[in-house]
Structures are given as C-alpha cells and as structure tokens.
C-alpha cells in the first residue's frame, strides 16, 4: 500500500534493504551558547520482524531518537532509512502521508480521544487516510476483537481500565497495518499484570513479517519480550544485544 511513497534506497543506506537504519544521526536543540546536542552520531539497524527495545536512563535521547525515526522530528545531521526510503527525501506533505500510512504510535498516556468510543478511536488512522467511516468502524471492530476488546467497542476511554485503554491504543496503532510501530513506555502507567498483557499483545500482534516494532521502555520486566535491546546513554548507542546473545 505504500508503493507510491517508497523510494529507492540511497547509497548511504545500501547496508539495509528493509527495516530501520539510522545513519550518523545528530540532533541539536537551541542556538549559540544554548545549543544542546542530544544525539551524537547515532548508528543503529533494526531489521524487520523484530521487536526492538530502546532502553536507557531519562534524558539519554531515547524519545528524540524515536521521534526522528517516526518522522516527527528532523535530525540536524544524518538520515533515517525506513523500509528502503531515506526520510531526507520526504518532506512536508509527503512525509506526513508516509507517516500516516507506515507508522503506528502507542503512547505512554494512550492519547485516546476522550469523546470517541473505543471503536471510533481505533478508526481514526483509517479516517485520516480517507477511508469511509462505516468501513473504518467495521475494520476497527475487527481489530478490537483481535486485541480482546470486542465487547468494549462502544465504551468511552473513561469507562476502560488503563490496560484496556492501552490495548485500544495498540489496536489504533495497528488498524491501518503500519510497517513501523513505535511504542513509548507502553507499560509505564500500568500495573505488572496489565503491563505483561500489553507486552504479550505487542509481541503477538505487532511483530509480523515486514514490520518493525520499537518499544521505548524503562521497565526491566519487559526486556524478555525484545529481540534486540538497544541501550542508550548520553545520546549515544552504548550497546546492542540481540536475542541470540540474550539466549
């Protein structure tokens, strides 16, 4: 569904044919003396069909990195290649369209629209893409069934528990079948049991062939769910551990 937007890989991205590749990413905020470098030449590859955990202490640049990977922020230098498409070739409306079709978001605070029912919330990414409301709602109901909330489709976020809201958020992130799923601290606001349910769901539902899932987390309990753990500190990648290494 993204053929019109997917560009040929650049020479800089030749090492990757799919997934996410960050190349020499530098991000600075502010100007002059107030300039702060948040990311220092970050290079990292995440192949498809993997769940990557991005971990590290607060302020180490995790959020900035996933914001850049998701196309929400521009790097000061370097580039991100998403599914063979250098982001530097996407600007303005093309980047927004690329994001709308290829990226799904799960936020720490869920960010569900409080006035919309669970099904209506899930249908939003499809509405953004211009899908008619009845079809979008039909698809939303199906995805809610998939995440185990079929019987909660007509309820407002305020009528759902934290864990259920996060599952709705996951359904919303997946309803348009994105190739990149970005999850920001998805278990931070949940108790242990709900957090486990959510991570199992992400592991089971999100990690599909051709899809990359990146989860930013502080939560050590979820490390077991990752295929790849990327540790950051002071704006740099300190260590990358794969499942093979993890055993």
């Amino acid at each position, binding site marked *: 569904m993204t053929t019109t937007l997917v560009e040929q890989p650049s020479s800089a991205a030749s090492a990757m044919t799919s997934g996410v590749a960050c190349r020499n990413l530098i991000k600075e905020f502010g100007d002059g003396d107030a300039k702060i470098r948040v990311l220092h030449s970050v290079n990292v590859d995440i192949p498809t069909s993997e769940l990557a955990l991005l971990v590290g202490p607060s302020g180490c640049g995790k*959020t900035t990195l996933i914001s850049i990977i998701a196309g929400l922020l521009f790097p000061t230098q370097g580039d991100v290649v998403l599914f063979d498409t250098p982001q530097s070739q996407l600007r303005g409306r093309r980047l927004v369209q690329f994001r709308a079709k290829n990226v799904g*978001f799960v936020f720490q605070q869920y*960010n569900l*629209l409080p006035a919309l029912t669970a099904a209506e919330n899930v249908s939003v990414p499809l*509405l953004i893409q211009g899908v008619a*409301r009845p079809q979008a709602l039909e698809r939303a109901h199906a995805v809610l069934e998939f995440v185990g909330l079929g019987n909660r489709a007509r309820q407002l976020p305020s009528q759902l528990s934290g864990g259920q809201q996060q599952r709705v958020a996951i359904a919303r992130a997946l309803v348009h079948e994105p190739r990149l799923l970005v999850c920001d601290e998805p278990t931070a606001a949940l108790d242990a049991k709900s957090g486990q349910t959510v991570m199992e769901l992400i592991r089971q539902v999100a990690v599909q062939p051709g899809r990359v899932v990146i989860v930013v987390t502080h939560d050590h309990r979820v490390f077991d769910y990752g295929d790849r753990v990327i540790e950051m500190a002071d704006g740099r990648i300190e260590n990358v551990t794969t499942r093979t290494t993890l055993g």
Partner: protein
Amino acid sequence: MNWVAWKMLTGDRAKYFGTVFGVAFGVLLISQQTSIFVSLMRRTAATVINVRDAQIWVFDQNMQNTEEIKPLSESDLTRIRGVSGVKWAVRFLKAQTRARNLESGTFRQVILLGIDDTTLVGAPVKVIAGSLADLRKPDAFMVDQAGYEYLFGVGEPIRLGRTLEMNDSRAVLVGVVDAHAPFETFPMVYTRYSQATRFVATERKVMSFVLAEPQDGRTAEQVCRQIQETTSLTAKTRTEMIWFQVGYYMRSTGIPINFGITIVLGFVVGTAIAGQTFYLFTVENIKQFGALKAMGVTNLGLTGMVLLQATIVGLVGYGLGVGMAAVFFESTKGMTHLRGFYMPWQVAALAAGAVALIIVSASFVSLRRVWVLEPAIVFR
C-alpha cells in the same frame, strides 16, 4: 475528519455548552445593547417617522431639532406653495402643552400635533379606535395608545368621548392611534391645526413646520433645494429629517457616548468570553491535536477541524444569543414604557459579523499553537 472534530467539540458537554454560552452571552450583550441604542435614537425622530404622507419638511433655517421650534409665519406657507416643483404644502404644528383629565383631575404634559384641517396630512396611518374623519368634529383629538394609558390609566379600556382640558379649552377623545413612541414618555395628541392653536398658549406665530410634496416627475431632493434657494428656509426630505433629528441627539447628548461605552464593553466582554473560552477549548485539546498530527493529519486538516468547531460554536452561540435578545424584545414589547424597542435586522447582522470576527480571531490565535505544535509533543 469533520466527524472527529464534531465529536471532540461536543464530547465534553460541559465544556461545549460553556463555550457556546460564552459566545451566546457576548452576542446577547452586543445585540441587545445596540438594539436599545438604535431604538432610543429612533424614538427621537418619532415626530417625523409618524408622518407618512409628506416627503418634504420645511422649517426655520436656525432650528436645530424638532423639540426646539422657531415657528414660521403664514406667509412662509404661501411662499413655499409658490415654489416650482411643489405639488402641495400644508401646515404642521408641534408643541408641548398641559392636558388635564377632567374626570380625575390629573394632568400630563403632552406633545400636541396639529395636522392640516382640510387634508389631515400628518396624521398617523394606523387608527386603533375611532375614525380619522372624526377629527373634523368640534374639539376633537386623538391620542396614541400609550398616551391613552398615561392620560386615563394603565389597563383602562379604550372609551371614546372622554374629555381633557388644554389651555382652558375642552377636548374630546375621538380615537386612539398607533404611533411610533417619542423620546419622552409623553402622550402624543393629534388634532386639527386650527384646534391645536387653541390648545397651546397663543403666540404671534405658531406654525412649526410646513409639510410638502413634490410634483410628479420631481424628486423630493430637487424640490428641497428649490425651496431653500427660493425661501431661505430649510427643507429636508423625510429621511434627511430623521437623520437631522437623530444627529442632533448624537451630537448634543451623552446617549451615544454612554451607549457606545456599553456596546464597546459588550463587544470587549463578549470577545473576551467567547474568544477565551474557544481558545482554551483548543489549547486544552492541544495534546489530542498533537496525537492527530503524529498520526498524519496535516496542518491544513487540523485547520479545517478547528474552523469547523469554530463555525459550529459560532452558529449555535449566535443563534442562542440573538434568540435571547429577540425573546427580550418580544416579551417587553407590550410594556408601555418599552414600546418601540426592537431589534433591527441590521443589528442582528452586526452581531453576526462581530461573532464571526471573534470566532475567527480566536480560532487563528489558537491555530497558531496548533500549527507550530511539534507532533513529538505526544512523547513528552
């Protein structure tokens, strides 16, 4: 996404109604106060408005308004009748005198209007009780509906034949007319010109105005110029005369300043309430807009959503505000002291323009927050 915008707007009922009533209150302030001001100014020109059958008013060149009259001489009437383009010209008297109710002994100051004996030009159009022709009877007078209550008592049923005394002369009620309310809360007494001269203290000259009509094929403006050039008197068309009178009150009284302040305050308060509530509504939803932006809604799409919300709030708020103002005027129209107060369509249009300006301004102020919003805010 229009549907999402609608749901975001109306999902929180308390917030939605708060925003709508903010706009409605602003519109109510603007439309009600402006209408009262316009109606009050219109009352100052009641003498002119009530005369429907003459297009031209002629009066002394030094006269500044229809309350402070310098009477014309009978020869002025003859001169006006001789001006080229004048089809006809008749006398018109306006004066204030004291009228005593002979039944109860109470008295009121009244506005006395003397209309042409022969043609009855200058009489109000609508007669509620009696017949205009009865004015030709001896001592006859007619009074406006509110004036009847002022003279004979509130709620008193209309009974013709009742008598007054004016300037030691007996006057008999032969009819009640529907006339535009004057600025002062005085009864408007209509009688024949010759009769009116008996009801006021005698002066050498008593003719307040000459009412005239242009000949066919000549405009009132042309004939007014002709009269002024020929007689050195001032001649104005009916519309010019209304504005002449309103202009005097605008220039010479504190009414426009006081009402102007009220209207400006209404506008400022209305803007503050309506604008701020809508601005806050958008700002409170900024994280939701950020999430939508992250998910792929463009700035143009978000602009459309905010403008749609603004349009809904504006339309509903305007409808409620103008509706409340209309209910006020509808519910008070039967009150004697408030008769003639109404909401002109121009005021409703002004309020619509004001609310559009308020809402569009508030939208663009809040949209600036949305436009510069980094979608990455959703990760913070």
